[in-house]
């Protein structure tokens, strides 16, 4: 769960920096922040997928196909955050 929360945090950072960059493509400092977060996201995604299975259906899975495993996102109650 902690893993998933960190993944969600970095993912949100990327959503926010991408929107900003869409209208400020020449802001070098913002781009640096975005690129750092992007690198961190790739690392986290790999760690998450190795442990819990694919986050996307383009991901690699152990046997059997783990993408279908629950809980699905709407089934988690994030009580402690």
């Amino acid at each position: 769960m902690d893993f998933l929360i960190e993944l969600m945090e970095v993912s949100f950072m990327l959503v926010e920096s991408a929107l900003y960059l869409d209208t400020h493509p020449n802001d070098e400092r913002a781009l640096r922040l975005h690129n750092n977060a992007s690198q961190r996201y790739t690392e986290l995604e790999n760690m998450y997928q190795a442990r819990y299975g694919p986050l996307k259906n383009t991901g690699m899975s152990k046997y059997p196909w783990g993408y279908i495993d629950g809980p699905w996102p709407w089934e988690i109650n994030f009580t402690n955050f």
Partner: protein
Amino acid sequence: MWIYEKKLQYPVRVDTTNPALAAMILEQFGGPDGELSAGIRYLSQRWTMPTNQGKAILTDIGTEELAHWEIIGTLVWRLVKDAPLSQIKGTPFEAHYVNHGKSPFPHNAGGQAWTAGYIQSKADPIADLHEDMAAEEKARATYEYLIRVSDDPGVSDTLRFLREREVVHFQRFGETLRIVQEYMDSKKYY
């Protein structure tokens, strides 16, 4: 194209079972200023947006709206999933229940089904971006009403996050409008 990521954009917490609140939150699932309207509106406007900044912002905000639509559906579902019939009867959710059971369905809080008449795409970037900015402010206002009627702290927390996103999107659309206006002016006078 789109690829689903198996996670919510925000860690949704729901503390109570509350069918009446669920019925009100459906406003943002299938109402005029809800997340479905927002997503379909922005994604429909992309083909005639002249600047690359505009194409990117419509794509990325439109995509984020679909993630918000998923969050709203999750709020509704978690507010009703454990409700016995006795807790549904007599609430505004009862009318929803006799048609859709406990499944979220895109209609507004009053039960009016979602329609593409809620959105517009004019092939006129100035008209479209003004519509988009208005849509973000209308959604912000709706979230403020919903926060006032919510008595579930977890739901209120998520509603505040979604309200904040409307503010950010309004800002980005305003910047896009300025960029598009400059682009159109430069074409006129060169």
